């Protein structure tokens, strides 16, 4: 008997077959009249409700938080913590499966994946669900294309060249293998071939390469899958295969390259950045940083770790670029700043470049002009989209002497426009990545000195969080889409990330906290007693939820080439469990906005 209970629906998909049977055997079905309160806020529940048909509204003090439909379940809080987080009311004739509380609690005790759904801590929930989205891991590596494994270059040598020349050629090119041109045919010679020829066969160093190389080249196409290359290696007992593109040899794929794919080759990028001798050579590792994001995501690395790795690599890139392009005057007098999400270390997929230059003393205008253009131009070339707000070294406002910038900051403080507030926010997130960090410290001290404790100024600054509304997940999705007006899209940046980041930024400015990462600021605020540690954790959790969902939609947008809508998530395409997490996160944002609103009396605007 199927009884219509869908065990593939999260969180039940985490149950084993016997656990599903146990659950099915214990199910009852409840019918609820339209308008009937199924669960009241603060009340306990004797069963987990899984909607069969109909719809259920979840309200928090009258605010409609969500509309639950078939396969959605509620309310984990009522079940586990004995108090429902919201009022649940049937919106139409509704039938629900009722999973008795003892059965749910038993399954929670035995099955951690299932239990995760019921954690009230959103971060714990998210961690456990990360496993469910566990990316294909090893599978994804084998499904990668040969070209993605960064095969080494193809270096050619003539068949008439001597063994000695071949040895030198290998040393120069830093490669342990050469392709041998012999008329129409192509051969391969490796360092091992050379050693054997000289040591074991005692051949003279003048022996032509033709006599020690072999011509049975094993090759794959650059577009082949890595697993095909791996099969060839195994079959032919080789540690490398030649790579062809359009029938031409373009490189070698070695077993070590494949290993690099498994771990992600983030560890190789810093070396390649350091070795770059000019901007052009920096372009390849710059691109790889971006490619890494998708690969790490596919391998199931958590979003905050991806952000950490990415921002570390980006900073190295900026430092190197600064060293390559800045004339001595700017190197001595200047301080390179990364701001906005880059400064907070929360950027994964590149959305824009927020950077600037602070100078201790004015430098030669010609030097500065050339540097501005070269620096921002290079970043354009690396694929960093220009900042729409012009927060770039290229913009003279953002590359000027310290006293000039401090004056500018004061102007923004007094100007009281949203743009000015945004500029202050972006600057407040700045970190110094190269040059004289003391300049940034001074500039920030000046800003904090002006703003700290100034309620009116801070309120004006905080008011930016009112720019976008935080929607109630489900209201739009259920009704608006159903009747064809509007859509169920949620902009995770506007609805989630921005209110948290900016609210926290305001509180940090209020208290003179110098950390730039939002999580770090929250930690400092909790320490300073600005709010409870639990709420701090919830905020960090919510922020990560939005970052994670945004990263997913960004990668999707990049794939589709539709970067305009990179932050848009469609709840209707999420699983019930994902929607549940998103709903929790949005609720936390709303609570936080209320905190900010009350603190700075934003209702007065």
């Amino acid at each position: 008997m199927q009884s219509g209970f869908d065990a593939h629906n999260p969180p039940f998909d985490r149950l084993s077959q016997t656990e599903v049977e146990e659950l099915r055997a214990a199910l009852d079905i409840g019918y609820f009249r339209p308008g009937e309160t199924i669960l009241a806020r603060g009340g306990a529940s004797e069963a987990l409700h899984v909607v069969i048909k109909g719809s259920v509204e979840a309200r928090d003090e009258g605010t409609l938080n969500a509309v639950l439909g078939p396969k959605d379940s509620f309310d984990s809080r009522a079940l586990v913590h004995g108090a429902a987080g919201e009022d649940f009311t049937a919106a139409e004739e509704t039938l629900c499966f009722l999973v008795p509380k003892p059965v749910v609690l038993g399954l929670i005790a035995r099955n951690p994946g299932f239990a995760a759904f019921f954690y009230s801590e959103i971060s714990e929930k998210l961690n456990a669900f990360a496993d469910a989205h566990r990316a294909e891991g090893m599978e994804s590596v084998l499904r990668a294309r040969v070209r993605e494994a960064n095969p080494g270059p193809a270096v050619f040598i003539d068949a008439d060249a001597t063994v000695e020349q071949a040895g030198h050629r290998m040393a120069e090119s830093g490669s342990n293998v050469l392709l041998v041109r012999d008329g129409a045919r192509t051969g391969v010679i490796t360092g091992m071939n050379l050693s054997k020829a000289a040591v074991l066969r005692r051949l003279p160093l003048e022996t032509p390469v033709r006599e020690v190389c072999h011509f049975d080249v094993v090759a794959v196409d650059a577009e082949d899958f890595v697993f095909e290359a791996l099969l060839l290696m195994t079959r032919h007992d080789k540690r490398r295969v030649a790579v062809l593109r359009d029938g031409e040899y373009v490189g070698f794929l070695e077993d070590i390259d494949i290993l690099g794919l498994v771990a992600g080759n983030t560890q190789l990028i810093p070396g390649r950045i350091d070795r770059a001798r000019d901007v052009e050579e920096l372009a390849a590792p710059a691109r790889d940083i971006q490619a890494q994001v998708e690969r790490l995501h596919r391998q199931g690395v958590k979003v905050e770790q991806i952000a950490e790795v990415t921002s570390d690599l980006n900073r190295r890139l900026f430092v190197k670029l600064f060293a390559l392009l800045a004339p001595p005057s700017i190197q001595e007098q200047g301080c390179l700043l990364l701001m906005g999400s880059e400064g907070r270390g929360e950027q994964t997929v590149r959305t824009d470049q927020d950077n600037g230059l602070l100078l201790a003393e004015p430098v030669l205008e010609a030097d500065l002009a050339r540097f501005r253009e070269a620096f921002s131009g290079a970043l354009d070339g690396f694929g960093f989209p220009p900042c729409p707000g012009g927060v770039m070294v290229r913009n003279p406002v953002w590359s000027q002497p310290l006293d000039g910038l401090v004056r500018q900051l004061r102007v923004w403080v007094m100007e009281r426009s949203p743009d000015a507030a945004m500029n202050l926010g972006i600057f407040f997130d700045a970190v110094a990545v190269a040059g004289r960090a003391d300049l940034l410290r001074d500039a920030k001290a000046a800003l904090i000195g002006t703003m700290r404790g100034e309620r009116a100024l801070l309120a004006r600054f905080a008011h930016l969080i009112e720019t976008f509304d935080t929607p109630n997940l489900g209201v739009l999705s259920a009704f608006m889409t159903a009747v064809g007006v509007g859509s169920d899209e949620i902009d995770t940046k506007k609805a989630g990330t921005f209110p948290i980041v900016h609210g926290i930024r305001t509180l940090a400015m209020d208290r003179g906290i110098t950390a730039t990462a939002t999580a770090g600021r929250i930690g400092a605020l909790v320490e300073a007693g600005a709010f409870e540690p639990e709420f701090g954790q919830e905020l960090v959790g919510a922020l990560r939820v939005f970052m994670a969902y945004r990263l997913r939609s960004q990668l999707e947008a990049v794939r589709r080439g539709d970067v305009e809508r990179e932050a848009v998530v469609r709840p209707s395409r999420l699983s019930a469990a994902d929607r549940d997490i998103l709903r929790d996160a949005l609720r936390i944002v709303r609570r936080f906005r209320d905190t900010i609103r009350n603190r700075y009396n934003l209702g007065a605007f």
Partner: protein
Amino acid sequence: MRRGALWRLFYRASLADHAYKFLFRPGPEGEAVSLDCETTGLDPGVDDVISVAAVRIRGNRILLSERFEATVRPEDARSSSEAIKVHRLRERDVEGGEPMRRVLPELLRFIGGRPLVGYYIDFDVRMLDKYALSLLQTKLPNPQIEVSSLYYDRKYGNAPPGTTFDLRFASVLRDLGIPPLEQHDALNDAVMAAMAYLALRDMKARGVRIRRERSGQGPPPTGG
């Protein structure tokens, strides 16, 4: 279809085994049992029940966890191939069942005096009566609640003459928005009938009707 008081009296008097007197007492307040049989065919005189399922309904709850389910091994008749197509219980599956003389007492104890709910419930009851008569010299005296007639009242009760009635089970489910479970499984059918019953009973209490599609508003003819 209603069983009159006289009938009840007669069968109560003729009841062979007085242990079954409970059938004639009203069941617990607010409870009912949704019942469905799968049979070898549609003629109670000839065909046999091969599986039966029942679920109790208490208030607005369907007590699926306390269900009754049994596969019946027919003592003589062979399942007709037509019926096999309908409910997919092959002889082999039925082999594992119990004979009706064991199933029926348990089923009757499960039902007690509760009203019986079903889609075309009269048929199921008539099938069961056949066994009840031979085993207990009685028929099932329980009141019957017919889902299709509740549906008829909600949808066609005030229909103008000439309206085409569609009382198919699938249409009932569709109109009520009940997700169709795999049909012709006795328990699924009993559960779906119970769901439909709860929804219809409530709509009746609230005076809500089911909208009728106007004739002529069906999908346009496709010409093929």
